[in-house]
């Protein structure tokens, strides 16, 4: 019986596929879309104030050598209510938090802040998710660590839980 080499080709191809698929199955499937903007400077933006009480937000507000948090949120977002106490805790640690309210209305923003507290120094209004998309955020809430040069250093996807506060503080420290 003579064996021919090409007869083994299908098996070899299949073995390659099976190995690859097996490897991929063991990989945890990430549910979130990570921003490709990490390590990049913030895109240019200048947003109007989200309500009467605080100024709006622009790229220039992130200059000045001090790392800050950029919090993407909305008054209509339930997890944002859950993360409000953690933002307050971060503020108490002396962290400056600049907010961007996504597709929101001034009266709703004011009502939310009156009810759940206001950890922000500035809130820009992103009515069409323009800035949100530009910095690579795919959902609400998300929080970014921006260093003093205006470079995006770290992305936190989803609401900030109690355990995440220390992580964010450490990332802010690293960004100094």
């Amino acid at each position, binding site marked *: *019986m003579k064996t*021919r080499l090409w007869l083994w080709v299908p098996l070899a191809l299949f073995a390659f*596929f099976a190995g*690859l698929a097996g*490897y*991929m*199955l063991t990989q945890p499937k990430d549910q979130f879309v990570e921003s490709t903007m990490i390590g990049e400077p913030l895109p240019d933006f200048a947003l109007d104030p989200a309500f009467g009480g605080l100024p709006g937000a622009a790229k220039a507000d992130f200059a000045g050598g001090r790392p800050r948090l950029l919090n993407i949120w909305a008054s209509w977002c339930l997890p944002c209510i859950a993360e409000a106490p953690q933002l307050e805790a971060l503020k108490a640690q002396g962290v400056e938090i600049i907010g961007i309210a996504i597709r929101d209305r001034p009266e709703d923003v004011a009502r939310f802040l009156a009810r759940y507290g206001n950890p922000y120094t500035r809130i820009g209004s992103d009515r069409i998710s323009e800035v949100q998309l530009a910095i690579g955020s795919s959902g609400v809430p998300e929080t970014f660590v921006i260093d003093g040069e205006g470079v995006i250093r770290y992305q936190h996807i989803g609401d900030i839980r109690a355990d995440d506060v220390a992580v964010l503080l450490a990332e802010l420290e690293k960004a100094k």
Partner: protein
Amino acid sequence: MIAEIGLAALWLAAALAVLQMVSGAAALRAGEGAVDPLAIYARPAAIVQAVLAVLAFLMLLWAFAITDLSIKLVATNSHSMKPLIYKLTGTWGNHEGSMLLWVGVLALSGGLLAAFEKRLPQNTMGATLAVQGFVALGFYAFLLLSSNPFERLPVPAVEGTGLNPLLQDIGLAIHPPTLYAGYVGLSVAFSLAMGALLTREVNPNFARVMRPWVLGAWVLLTLGITAGSYWAYYELGWGGWWFWDPVENASFMPWLAATALMHSVSVLAARDALRTWTIMLGVLAFSMSMLGTFLVRSGVLTSVHAFAVDPERGSFILALLGLYIGGAFTIFALRAGAVAEGKRFAAVSREGALVFNNVMLSAILAIVLLGTLYPLLTEAFNVRVSVGPPYFNPASAIFAVPMFLVMAVGPILRWKDDKPARIQFEVMLVAALLIGVIAAVSFFGSFPFLPLLGLGLAAALAVAAILPLRGRKLTRVPVATWGMVIAHFGVAVSLFGMACEGAFTEERLAAVAPGGTEQVGDFSVTLESVTPVAGPNWTALEARLAVSQNGGAPVILAPQARNFWSPPQATSESALLTRWDGQLYAVIGNQAEDGRWQIRVWWKPFVTFIWYGGLLIALGGVLAIAGRVRVDVKRRSAVAKADARRADLEALEAQPAE
């Protein structure tokens, strides 16, 4: 009781699969002519197993019909308020139920093979049934160990959670069962190929046995894909009919392999050539079905067909794949060299054309497979890519275009050896049509290249498809030949629809205030009103669009933005106006702040021809089966008559002369 009967039937069927496997293997070991006491059980085991698997499926169907909320699967996928038809179709609108359908079809095709196929030598048949039982066993194990559809809830649910609204459509009643029947019907071709390989009985007789199974599965696949494409077209509301989505590709790849197999098995039956190649394709076709099932069920690829993702189930199916595909390819590599080479033929011959197109089909298969798996490969290196039409369309066209050209002339070539000069007239005719149509269409405007080429090819193919009938008495043409002619003509019709849709579609996206009018092609579309309407388990905003063609009497179209409440989900229900020369496709979008409504309207000339073509192709397949089976039955009854006459004569002669 329903769940217990179903579960017991499944376990019994699994046990019978073991018996079928052992008994089939015994028949294979005993060899042709010899009798092994164990060997007699394979056929009955396969038949009873089919009955049991179908019974299990019927039990689940019943549980869904009466909304038995003590069964977990029913509670998580159905709802008492759903219309009955969607309760029933919901049976396979989920992972466990659809796998049960899969296994049911697998057992049923095995049972049919065991019951009706009497032409194969005993040892080949034994090996075939052993393989079929072996495959079934793995999938029973999968069902029973990791996807039990009959699992009870400790406490019956008060109400079910409902079925994905996109699936609450008549499309679900037709598309998955036909597709599955085709998918899994290919298992018979797989088992036969393995059986023939194990006994080295790869010959025209074997090909004649295999052919109706391949044709049958191929017809069902064709229908399933056609129905699925139309379903996606009107239900998803994107206006497209093919998205090169991984799950679509998963159904298209077995079809490509089956198309190649169907042609190569015909060559084997008629000319005793292409032996190894036919076996290879037989293994490949069902392997593609299993691969598709893996891709869909494991969630390794992201797709619009969002099924529940479960890595454990994925690993289980991958292990089965390794066992069956890996095992089959190993046996192929070891054995195929020992299969005697078939008859030779010249490059210019009907076999030559069929081989060329087989290679082209396989190349398209490779292109689609690569495009489907490429994201998997790059994700292993943490790069996310999405492969879409810009890759698939041109890459498959590179091989599809020469394939269509050869397909135009292949059927009029002679078997074994032919002279190009003999078909000079036909070649010139096809070439003239191709170039003429492309030139004529380009004269009227500038269109994208591929659709333009498609139009030319469609015209050439349509005429070429009926050329084999030239100079023949139509009443004497065999039914199977009619099948080929109609199927090839269907390809032309489908191609024409695709090309027209690609070249001439007009789209209009506008914000319209009630009373406002937009123009799309020959149609003026007036938004009359937007009103809330309610269905059995949804509420919707329904737009009334008065559509009039060239100022004629208006027709009302009513696209809806539907909101289902169980589970909560919004869907967009398109409204279609079908004319013989195309379809108007309307979708309603959101309301803008100033009170105007987003309306999206397409005029798609001849788009329906895509699916008419699909139906013609399937009809051709049905005629081919009918023709082959009729000829075969005639031949067999003639042989039986001759045998009987001979026996009579012998009996007469044996009588002592008085």
